[in-house]
């Protein structure tokens, strides 16, 4: 059987399973931005946007956009019942102050200690953009990274030490990729689930630091999508 990695949507779907009913959650750019579509209908998540929304709903339908009601990517959105508006400083009281239950960001690199690099390619021309990522990474009660396991050139994105400029140190709790679910624990990186068709040894091969795993790592679980 050919070993086919998860799609970006499937990474998003698996990540959505980490969200408990009633959680206040901030989603970053990239794969995290796909997650809201996979929240099961029987639970409510209060999505936070750093421009001043708690309780953000789906994108506004064409013709119903209000350009004073946008998400952090400038996209017109809607509200769910119980939503609130506030200023940008209060939005970051929520991020930095540890009030959000879960934050989910994309990454360029994550180190075995949970250091995160996600804002700038080393040596890149131009100014760079930090946005709210540093505040979010430092303050999150639980920080999940949703990303592809390897870079486009095949190099590992889970590394011993980040070579890219850091966003925050020792901040990542869990990494969810197209190959695995990995927890960052005091003893190191612990393999929690492996994508269908792959072995723990396969995942280790695509990862720079040593992974800790038992002989029976469960298959990465889905709730709604049919397995391949």
């Amino acid at each position, binding site marked *: 059987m050919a070993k086919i990695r998860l799609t970006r949507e499937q990474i998003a779907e698996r990540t959505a399973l980490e969200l408990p009913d009633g959680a206040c959650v901030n989603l970053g750019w990239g794969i995290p931005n796909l997650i809201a579509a996979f929240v099961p209908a029987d639970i409510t998540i209060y999505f936070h*946007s*750093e*421009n*001043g*929304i708690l309780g953000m709903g789906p994108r506004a339908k064409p013709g119903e956009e*209000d*350009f*004073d*009601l*946008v*998400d*952090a*990517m*400038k996209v017109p959105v809607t509200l769910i019942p119980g939503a609130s*508006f*506030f*200023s*940008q*400083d209060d*939005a*970051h009281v929520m*991020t*930095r102050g540890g009030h959000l239950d879960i934050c989910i960001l994309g990454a360029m690199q994550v180190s075995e200690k949970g*250091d995160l690099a996600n804002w700038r390619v080393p040596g890149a*021309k*131009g*100014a*760079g*953009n*930090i*946005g*709210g*990522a*540093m*505040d979010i990474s*430092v*303050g999150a009660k639980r920080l999940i990274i949703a990303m592809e396991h390897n870079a486009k050139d095949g190099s590992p994105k889970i590394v011993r030490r980040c070579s890219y*400029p*850091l*966003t*925050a*140190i020792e901040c990542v709790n869990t990494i969810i990729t197209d190959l695995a679910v990995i927890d960052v624990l005091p003893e190191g990186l612990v393999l929690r689930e492996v994508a269908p068709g792959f072995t723990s040894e396969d995942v280790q091969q695509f990862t720079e630091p040593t992974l800790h795993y038992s002989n029976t790592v469960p298959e990465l679980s889905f709730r709604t999508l049919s397995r391949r």
Partner: protein
Amino acid sequence: MGEAVADIPDGATIMFGGFGGAGFPNNLIQGLARQGARNLKVISNNCGAGEGELGLLFRNHQISRVVAAFPGPGAKYFHEQFDAGEIELELAPQGILCERMRASGAGIPAFYSPVGVGTDIASGKEERVIRGRRYLLESALGADYAFIKAHRADHLGNLIYRKTARNFNPIMATAANTTIVEAEEIVETGTLDPEMIVTPSIFVDRIVQARGVRFG
């Protein structure tokens, strides 16, 4: 509009509200573009969208220094001048940008924060361990002027914002020596519900009527 920005001198430091296309004081920005002050130091989350928002002032080469969290992929004129070495940039994490302005408005000269510890942002900042955790000393950030967009103002300067157009506006209103507001509606003093007022009038110096300028 011209009158509201007429006295802004070359070299002034100005804060601009706005995020994601919402809550930008676009009338005041256009007024400042016509007024022509140069060598401006600006504090803003981003650096314009094409010729929209702050883009107009960058296009006119009116800005020499920026403090921003997210210059943004659409900030064409900023990026051209930054790459050419014509503009100085201080990049700040967005929440720290907010808190530095809040501190200035609240009379606090500096504060310790965990954001940016161990990153490039820590460069040149004092680090201190408090109760076992590492922190950076961040300085307050004030300005000569703040340009603010409100939904509704009364003649005294009490302000109400609309949805996510609030963003940086209330913080900046507290952090500048002179706060200039453009409001979509200006109403009689006493008609706004005091329970609903977000920016109290003490923080506001000038109010002008906004006229439907928006950039996608």
